[in-house]
């Protein structure tokens, strides 16, 4: 059966338009027939004949179902396809309304029409049972993402070679252990400090220093001397953290993220106390070459061997170029089939603004990638990470 149905589908796609037209015509005829039939029944009101007829009809139908399943199947499939295709209402149907109401009425009618067709399809699906055509995958912005040539293929020798020799290679070769310095803008306000302490809670082996009006370039030099591997600088605007500079030491690169929708631990509905165990790190959806770089950079913040007894997880989830940060403790329920999550840390969203080669030097440095808002953001379906 399966191959036959497939064939029929194909043929339908090719001739769908013609079928559609034909069906419209036949539908009209059917309606006419229905109108006529009851009249006949009324006329032929003899006692014996109608039940017999009905029985015969039923038998015939059963036989037909057994014999002509293919044809019926095709018919149903055709109907299914027809209900999928365009709506029956057009704007010409609302010419009797004043102009200001037409658009609204059309929208309403179309929505109604859509629902009706959906129901029709679901009915047909029930009738078809197993041989029903597959449901279409919903079209989302992500699934319709624009083609990106830089998507990383796992078996790409050249990218592998490039990554084996980049600035993060020492960390991934286990030559260095992460040691993170967290600092902030000069004269930072209380919320920024709070955010820094939250960050310290998430990132093991990190230290907070107040900025004290020291230049960032001198801080970098001093951090290099003390063998820090990463530097985080929290920027604030209107007394709230709004950006973060993330500089990998000693050779760079430097990235600038915008911070969005920050929620502190205290403001969460339910939260737990963090522990000192090394967390596991989940990096989700970083697929392009740039995304890979950012993911490697973020991974460098955390120590190598997570302590699984602590059951702590730090998640960086990328969705439409926004990186969601979450911090949880998980717990396996009975027999390990389910897991419960308890949120521990702050919640925030990061958005990459630029990535610069080398340590922080915004004026003279070379930028590897810059988000140019009006030049690059011409499509809603284009993503860079």
């Amino acid at each position, binding site marked *: 059966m399966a191959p036959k149905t497939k064939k029929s589908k194909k043929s339908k796609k090719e001739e769908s338009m013609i079928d559609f037209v034909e069906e419209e015509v036949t539908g009209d005829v059917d309606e006419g027939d229905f109108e006529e039939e009851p009249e006949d029944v009324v006329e032929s009101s003899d006692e014996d004949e109608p039940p017999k007829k009905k029985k015969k009809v039923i038998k015939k139908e059963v036989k037909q179902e057994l014999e002509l399943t293919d044809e019926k199947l095709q018919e149903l499939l055709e109907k299914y396809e027809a209900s999928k295709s365009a709506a029956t209402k057009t704007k010409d149907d609302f010419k009797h309304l004043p102009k200001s109401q037409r658009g609204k009425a059309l929208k309403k009618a179309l929505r109604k029409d859509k629902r009706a067709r959906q129901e029709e399809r679901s009915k047909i699906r029930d009738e078809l049972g197993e041989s029903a055509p597959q449901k279409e995958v919903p079209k989302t912005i992500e699934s319709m993402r624009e083609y990106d040539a830089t998507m990383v293929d796992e078996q790409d020798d050249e990218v592998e070679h490039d990554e084996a020799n980049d600035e993060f290679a020492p960390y991934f070769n286990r030559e260095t252990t992460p040691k993170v310095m967290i600092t902030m803008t000069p004269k930072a306000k209380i919320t920024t400090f709070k955010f820094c302490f939250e960050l310290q809670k998430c990132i093991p082996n990190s230290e907070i220093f107040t900025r004290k009006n020291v230049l960032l370039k001198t801080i970098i030099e001093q951090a290099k001397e003390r063998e820090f591997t990463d530097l985080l600088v929290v920027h604030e605007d209107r007394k709230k953290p709004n950006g973060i500079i993330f500089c990998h030491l000693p050779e760079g690169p430097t990235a600038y993220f915008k911070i969005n929708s920050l929620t502190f631990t205290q403001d969460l509905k339910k939260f737990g106390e963090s522990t000192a165990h090394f967390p596991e790190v989940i990096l989700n959806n970083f697929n392009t*070459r740039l995304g890979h770089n950012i993911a490697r950079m973020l991974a460098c913040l955390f120590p190598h061997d997570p302590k699984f007894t602590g059951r702590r997880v730090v998640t960086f989830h990328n969705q439409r170029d926004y990186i969601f940060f979450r911090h949880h403790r998980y717990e396996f329920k009975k027999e390990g089939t389910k897991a419960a999550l308890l949120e521990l840390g702050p919640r925030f969203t990061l958005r990459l603004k630029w990535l610069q080669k080398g340590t922080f030097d915004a004026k*003279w440095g070379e930028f590897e990638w810059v988000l140019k808002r009006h030049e690059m953001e011409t499509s809603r379906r284009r993503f860079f990470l």
Partner: protein
Amino acid sequence: MDCYVGATTGALKGALLKDNTFENLNEIKSLDPKSDEITSMIWSDEQQTEILIARMNRDLQLFDIEQNEQVSILTVTGGTGAIKGLHKTDEKILTCVESGEIQIWNDKSEVVSEWKCGPGVAIMRGSEEKPEVVTGGMKNLLKTWNLETGQQVWSARNVPPDMLGLEIPIMITDARFIPGQNTILEATKLHEMRVYDPRAQRRPVNKLKFMENPIMCTSLTNKTNQILAANSIGEMGLFDLRSKVHPMCKFKGQAGSIRSIAGHPTMPLAASVGIDRFLRVHDLQTRKLIHKIYCKTRLNRVLLRNELSILNDRKNAAKKEIDEDETEYGNMTQDGYRDSEDEDGDDVIEEDDVWDVMEPVKKKQKMSEDDVEIVEAPMEEDDEEDVPEKKKKNLRKRKVIQEEEIKEELDDSDEPDDVAVTKKPKKASGKKKVLKKRA
């Protein structure tokens, strides 16, 4: 291969623009970016069959395009830092390292002569017209050197201090001779390009500002007065050296710093590479991005061949346009710099050219008049045609009306006869039905 690209990992790539693909010309796995990074790349001969490559560990290699073979020639010794500039003049290779040692090597890889041009060199480039090179860099003013004697020919003076009386830092990123004009172009990190005329003065004769980020590289184009420049966030602009204010246009598409641009000598094309890992080819006339090739690694240097696979189709058409453009204003600018004898020689030819040009213009005018007549004539005809059509329509209407009258009569009398009537005109059938209902 149309484009040769040197990467920071040390890979040499050949890109085929026709197919939008690239190919690695050496094995990648054995490369070590710390020693093999390509820092400089030039054509070794004018036929463009060999490329001279300088690597981070100061090895010079010769790459043969036809045989895909790479041969090590020599290793530069003395001084420190990477090779910042290469130049080739008849069997002699000129190298310049970051600490300022300029060395001339003969074909037996021996040092012929050596001199210093000061530390912090960012660029050294040779001239195609005379035996000179230009050097410049961080805190190292622009200087030109004679190759035969090793003497300094000319040196620039820093621009005057700013309005606060502070010295303006010297941060040269790129410098080159402009052929045919005897001028030198300098790009700085202060988002400014300066044009020097060594015969006139030591300070720049023209300054061109571009956006707000350091300018990383420049390139010549097919037109004598136009140059390309790009900065550290991937903005590339086309400039006219005679103007002072704005770039002629800005090219879109780059995401990161551009390290090298290569303009085509005869066609309005330019290839650019940078650390955003893309090779891009722009059309300078339409200002559009034609090709974009993802090369997987950060790219340092690009060379564009004269013979491109994409040019074969439109070569002839485009060439004519360029020739016309050059005759239009190319000579005007050249007149000022040329000797009197040359000018006379040119003038004679030009006059001939002028007469050649003049005659077709007259013809064209005549032709255009003819065209107008021709165009007008069919217009009149159209009008004439239109009129009968309208008349015809009217006639048809009249006919229909007559038929309707007939049908009415027929309806009254007999039914079978009107079937025969309906077969003749199509329009009548619809109206006929209406009439029936009325009846």
